[in-house]
């Protein structure tokens, strides 16, 4: 039986660091760490789907888009409490995720990647079509804006809650079923796991996480939701975060989220690279490098290091 104490200690340390950062950092840097928190939620959601259930999605930006617009529209039209709109984003994206998960039942691997990619390109176009309701290219503005600190606190509180939720889901019966589906569908079915139920459930949970992330994403952007924010690049960022994290590790997620959340602004400070789109070059090169050198991402690296210290 492995001791839980080291894990609990590291969680406590991370929590302490994150809650003390706003007192140390400048307002701008606080908003950067907020971005990390938002990506943490999205990457965590994708990890549940891809890392634990073995189903790829290149379309999580679409769910973030839906979540973000939920918050913006509810706030604009009904002045709904922003926290409540986040819960609504969670619920709506859960349902949409289940619906997307249904065709995904018959698909796997390359086909699923195709469908979700097309989804990610399609969804941000819908506000252009229904522009009177969804604001068109000009976007939707929430009725109230919030401070950087507010978003920081809410984003990391939500991260903590969703992290615990993910841990609870994954450690129990459902999580075992997810992993069984990932490792061998045939064996999973033979063990009495109902594939349709668990595959769509994983999609729904994963999409719900992305929805909350999208909602926070809009709030961090001064409560402004516009189609361009949710371009395909966002979906790719989430996938890259999950890849860097190493699929199937809750701890790697923090590193993956920090990678996608911080790299653009860190690299923009470096001469030459910082110019124009140099950061995308770094981004793309970094993820390819990670895939070539660290096949299991940061999580794999941690595991290897642990193995070395024990040996």
């Amino acid at each position: 039986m492995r001791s839980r104490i080291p894990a609990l200690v590291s969680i406590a340390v991370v929590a302490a660091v994150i809650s003390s950062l706003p007192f140390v950092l400048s307002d701008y840097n606080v908003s950067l760490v907020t971005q990390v928190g938002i990506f943490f939620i999205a990457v965590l959601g994708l990890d549940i789907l891809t890392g634990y259930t073995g189903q790829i999605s290149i379309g999580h930006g679409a769910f973030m888009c839906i979540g973000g617009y939920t918050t913006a529209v509810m706030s604009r039209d009904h002045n709904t409490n922003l926290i409540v709109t986040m819960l609504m984003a969670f619920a709506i994206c859960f349902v949409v995720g289940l619906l997307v998960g249904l065709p995904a039942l018959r698909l796997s691997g390359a086909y699923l990647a195709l469908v979700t990619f097309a989804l990610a390109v399609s969804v941000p176009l819908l506000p252009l079509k229904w522009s009177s309701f969804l604001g068109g290219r000009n976007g939707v503005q929430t009725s109230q804006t919030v401070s950087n600190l507010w978003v920081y606190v809410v984003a990391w509180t939500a991260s903590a809650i969703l992290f615990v939720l993910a841990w609870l889901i994954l450690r129990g019966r459902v999580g075992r079923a997810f992993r069984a589906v990932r490792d061998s569908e045939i064996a999973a079915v033979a063990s009495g796991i109902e594939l349709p139920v668990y595959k769509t459930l994983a999609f729904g949970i994963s999409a719900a996480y992305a929805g909350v992330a999208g909602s926070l994403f809009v709030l961090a952007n001064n409560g402004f939701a516009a189609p361009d924010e949710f371009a395909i690049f966002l979906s790719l960022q989430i996938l890259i975060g999950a890849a860097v994290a190493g699929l199937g590790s809750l701890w790697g997620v923090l590193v993956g989220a920090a990678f996608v959340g911080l790299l653009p602004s860190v690299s923009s400070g470096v001469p030459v690279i910082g110019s124009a789109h140099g950061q995308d070059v770094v981004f793309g090169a970094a993820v390819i490098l990670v895939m070539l050198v660290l096949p299991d991402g940061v999580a794999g690296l941690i595991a290897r290091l642990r193995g070395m210290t024990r040996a």
Partner: protein
Amino acid sequence: MATAESSRLESLRNRGAALGGGGGTPIVIVILVGVAIFLLVGSLRSVTFAQLTVQGLALGAVYGSLALALVLVYRATRVVNFAQGELAMLTTYIAYQLIKWGLSYWEAFFATLAIALVLGIVLELALIRPVLHRSVIAAVIVTVGLFVLIDGVVNWIWGGDFKFMPSPFGTKIYHVGGVSIARLYVGMFVVVIISVLLVWALFRFTKLGLGMRAAALRPAEAAFVGVRVEWMLAIGWGLAALLGAVAGLMAEPSQFTLEPTLMQPILVYAFAAAVLGGLDSPAGAVIGGLLIGVSLNLVVQYGHIGPLKITSELQTPAAFAVIVAVLLFKPSGLFGHQEVRRV
């Protein structure tokens, strides 16, 4: 020894033809003939319809060639190359640069195709090969990284603003019985179809093509009869990049400008085309491309579901709907082979 080898190759050729050839059932052919008749009758009755059909065929040829590139890669390595569109965009920028350096359009065109071929081979060897054995997810993530990388490189070197290239076909307009057809569309269609036919001939009639088909369909047996499987797969990627370059170069004049997002919507249409035709069917990809091109063009003009008018913003979502519908009801597409799965 030599005869033994050639007879083995012969039997492989037959099997390869059986595996890679047909697949289109009589019903599919009847449907396609029906579509053709519908388009012909429509074109004879309405000038607008005819013009949209011609334009749709030209655009569809572009989608088809990018779809064919995707299919070649998929057949060779079972990877969907998400960077295929960005790669095509990059090679179009290379052509732009060559023209700026003083080459004529067609000199630049052929130079770009050669560069694309080499680029495709190098990418496969350097980036895809090492992750190929690991998992589909790993390979997909590498192509996603490539997507971001190419996007960054192009924005870095050329910037994100519009660039203009000389038109390869001029601005002449033909008049065929009241229907005006831009020379541009005829040119696009012809160039793409010639490229596709050349690639098809390469696969069908040369020893290299035979080796490539063998390597894609039966890698172990192919290696057994002396086919250098790994090289064949790399060349498959190279040819795909070449076809992508054709698609990019022909997409540019239809958009009238060159910008880094040139191929992003076209990639989705090409996905739809490839899925509609069957992800492992080269002929299906091209036919799928033409079908998608024409129907997207017509649906914007005439399509509405109840009160919902389908406008140009809904073209990409419509392509998404096609992908989902095909995968739900006929996952193997019009010409693909049914994938046999355990479970």
